């Protein structure tokens, strides 16, 4: 019998009854209650992330490795055949997960850093800065973003860096609008006023007082924005002005193999080849949409 066990401690008594739920156990409970669509979405996203990270180990060949036989049929040495110059399509699909999803993810994060930061700043400083940014965003949003992206790409040329910067800036306008509109309601709260009177700087107020309170809509927007960015980049690559060869990318893979579709009558598998990268894009978008739907439903607390 040691001294500690006989000593009375209020904390011990309380904690002995109330086993505090850790973040992990709370997540487990939440996941158990999630609908089938959201589970499906999460599994799909997890698989994509896994494939993207371990692409070089999963793929049988390199992404730009050229083989002797172009347009090889499915099966045999090449699981999904080869493309117009003889690259293994299965390997390029796997590397595509890394390139296409990676670029879209980086772009979305950048758009959120720019749009979210400026949106918060505009919501806190409601004077000239807000006016300037809001009017600027109005004008940028008056041009359809795909068209604007095409104009900018024709000036600066198509490269991965240009693509990321252009789409991030164009999409940050939407993030700015959302962040500003939700943050404006939080900025007028008393605790923000208290922090301001306490003498906290702009950075503290943005990060510690406002951001935690506007997080749920922003997280949902992140999912939706990612889908949008992902589809835009895929469309641009499909048009031939996005991610440039020889980088394996789903959008340009659809374009490169599109002519195979005409042979579907003779060999259905060949006809399906251009649809594979397209369905990889579609599947991820559907999955993210399912998860965002559930997340919105969960955080808004609507019981419909």
């Amino acid at each position, binding site marked *: 019998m040691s001294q500690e066990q006989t000593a009375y401690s209020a904390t011990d008594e309380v904690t002995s009854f109330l086993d505090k739920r850790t973040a992990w156990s709370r997540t487990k409970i939440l996941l158990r209650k999630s609908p089938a669509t959201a589970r499906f979405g999460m599994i799909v996203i997890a698989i994509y992330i896994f494939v993207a990270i371990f692409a070089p180990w999963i793929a049988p060949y390199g992404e730009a490795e050229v083989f002797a036989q172009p347009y090889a049929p499915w099966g045999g040495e090449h699981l999904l055949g080869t493309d117009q110059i003889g690259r293994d399509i299965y390997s390029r699909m796997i590397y595509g997960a890394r390139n296409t999803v990676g670029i879209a993810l980086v772009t979305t994060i950048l758009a959120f850093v720019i749009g979210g930061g400026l949106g918060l700043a505009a919501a806190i400083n409601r004077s000239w800065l807000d006016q300037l940014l809001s009017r600027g965003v109005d004008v940028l949003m008056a*041009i359809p973003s795909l068209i604007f992206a*095409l104009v900018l790409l*024709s*000036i600066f040329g198509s490269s991965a860096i240009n693509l990321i910067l252009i789409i991030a800036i164009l999409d940050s306008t939407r993030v700015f609008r959302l962040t500003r509109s939700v943050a404006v309601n939080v900025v007028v709260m008393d605790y923000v006023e208290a922090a301001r009177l306490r003498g906290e700087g702009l950075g503290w107020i943005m990060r510690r007082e406002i951001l935690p309170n506007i997080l749920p809509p922003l997280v949902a927007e992140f999912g939706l924005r990612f889908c949008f960015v992902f589809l835009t980049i895929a469309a641009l690559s499909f048009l031939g*002005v996005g991610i440039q060869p020889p980088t394996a990318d789903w959008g340009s893979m659809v374009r490169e193999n599109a002519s195979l579709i005409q042979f579907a009558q003779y060999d259905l598998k060949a006809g399906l080849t251009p649809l594979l990268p397209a369905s990889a894009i579609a599947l991820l978008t559907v999955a993210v949409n399912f998860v965002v739907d559930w997340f919105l439903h969960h955080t808004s607390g609507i019981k419909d």
Partner: protein
Amino acid sequence: MHPIVATVIQRLFLGIATLFVVSIIIFSSIEMLPGDFGQAVLGQAATEETVAAFRKELGLDKPAYIRYFDWVAGVIQGDLGTSFSGRAASGVDRSRPVAELIAPRLWNTLFLAGMTAIIAVPLALFLGITAALYRNTYYDKIVSASTLTTISFPEFFVAYILILLLTALWPVFPSLANIDVSTPLGERIYRSALPALTLTLVIVAHMMRMTRAAIINLLANPYIQMARLSGATQREVILKHALPNAWAPIATVIAFNLAYLVVGVVVVEVVFVYPGVGQLMVDSVTSRDIPVVQACALIFAITYIFLNLLADIIGIITNPRLLHPK
């Protein structure tokens, strides 16, 4: 002045102001090109004189604001400048005016967009209203789930599925929509059927979801509950009480989606090699033919701004609360 007229005039001015700023942005795209782009357009073999003559033709020896007003004056008179392509290092100039390149293609694009709108708008309204009417039934769930799926699909995916099914496996339609001025109307509709069908599938989904959401939003209002309590049936509530108030959001939804159509057209035209403005724009972006890109971007931006403005104004005019000011 009637408050509606005042608001509409204010919106019109706002639209014109936006257009002005947008035109400056599109114009300045040529300013951002690197300094030696004359050399790039004309090729390495171009002599200094040809490059200088080319720069002079573009008016690069004049200050930017004068060139901007020249450009705007030209655009208003239908002169969109001269294409970069077809110029040779030797100074031989086979380039064509941009307006001449765009005019027939613009007509084709408008034809495709119009055809899509005629099919898509009634279909989307029907689906949206019935889905709201039979809310939470299997009908609603199936319609909602299938539209959510088509929204998530990239346009080219929908396009290639249709090509696979309707041209490769069961040859019903031609896979390439090659039409020109001489194509008769019936043939034109037949050849544009697949691109129009693709666009329809894409925008019906958006329009239907927004229509459904607009009506369901309205159903949460107290006056709808009042109507219900007074014994109106579900059908009466939707058609008599909710719909008149829903026209504004629905009109906004339609105009907004037609604006979306403007953008969606680009990808679909490329898939089906449809000779429209979108395809021309993508080709010009690849060859960096800036005058053509500018002209196409201006056309798309004007249409987009106009349709959004229209949505705004319809929303104001049909708002019953604004119609009867106190």
